[in-house]
């Protein structure tokens, strides 16, 4: 399974080991780990609540991975995204990519994250000292998505 959405924590080392799979063609492994910050746009965040749309979210992630695999020369791509309540410093998302060379691994990992941020159906709610609030979409994420043309 290259794509998973789950409430449970994930084990980065195990995910990367499974992706590498002892394949000696692999020369480069790039991973992105997204973690909960305790400050967002200047507001203290106690807990983040992540929601997805079961069925559609998995399909969207699979489409993003397929697009990355068609654009870049990579061997494997894995995406694990958590949902539910998450405290500061907890991992939210892991994207791991293997390739023969570093340029494709970096490009593909970044591409997946940029598209995931703008295309994948996930929504964040922050629990702050002033109450709960849904996070608004960031303009900078749309810009990052637009980079890929």
């Amino acid at each position, binding site marked *: 399974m290259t794509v998973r959405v789950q409430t449970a924590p994930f084990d980065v080392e195990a995910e990367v080991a499974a992706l590498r799979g002892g394949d000696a063609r692999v020369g480069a492994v790039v991973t992105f780990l*997204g973690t909960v910050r305790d400050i967002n746009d200047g507001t203290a965040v106690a807990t983040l609540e*992540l*929601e*997805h*749309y079961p*069925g*559609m979210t998995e*399909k*969207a992630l699979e489409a993003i991975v397929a697009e990355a695999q068609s654009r870049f020369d990579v061997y494997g791509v894995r995406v694990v*995204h958590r949902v539910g309540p998450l405290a500061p410093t907890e991992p*939210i*998302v892991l994207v791991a990519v293997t390739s023969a060379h570093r340029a494709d691994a970096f490009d593909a990992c970044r591409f997946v*994250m940029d598209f*995931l*941020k*703008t*295309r*994948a*159906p*996930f*929504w*964040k*709610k922050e629990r702050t000292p002033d109450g709960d609030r*849904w*996070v*608004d*979409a*960031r303009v900078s994420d749309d810009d990052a998505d637009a980079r890929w043309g």
Partner: protein
Amino acid sequence: MEGTQHPVATVRLVFLARLRDALGRQDETYPLDRPISVGALLEALRARGGPWERELAAGRAYKVAVNHEVVAAGAVVRPGDEVAVFPPVTGG
């Protein structure tokens, strides 16, 4: 195969995240016995007034997916479809 043995005369509506909170429901079974456009469906929902009129107003930022694919207002909704309405995504 849908509709050959048991004709479906409804669509499932799904509301997510902030829109679910604002509209006060997570999903509903909506009667629909013939294809209509997404725009016409939204117009019918806005006619409920209150938060429906406010949240689904033309200028508001939200998206519609039919059977898990984001679509424009001209897309067609058929009986048996799943139609989701949600705010811009903020994942990762």
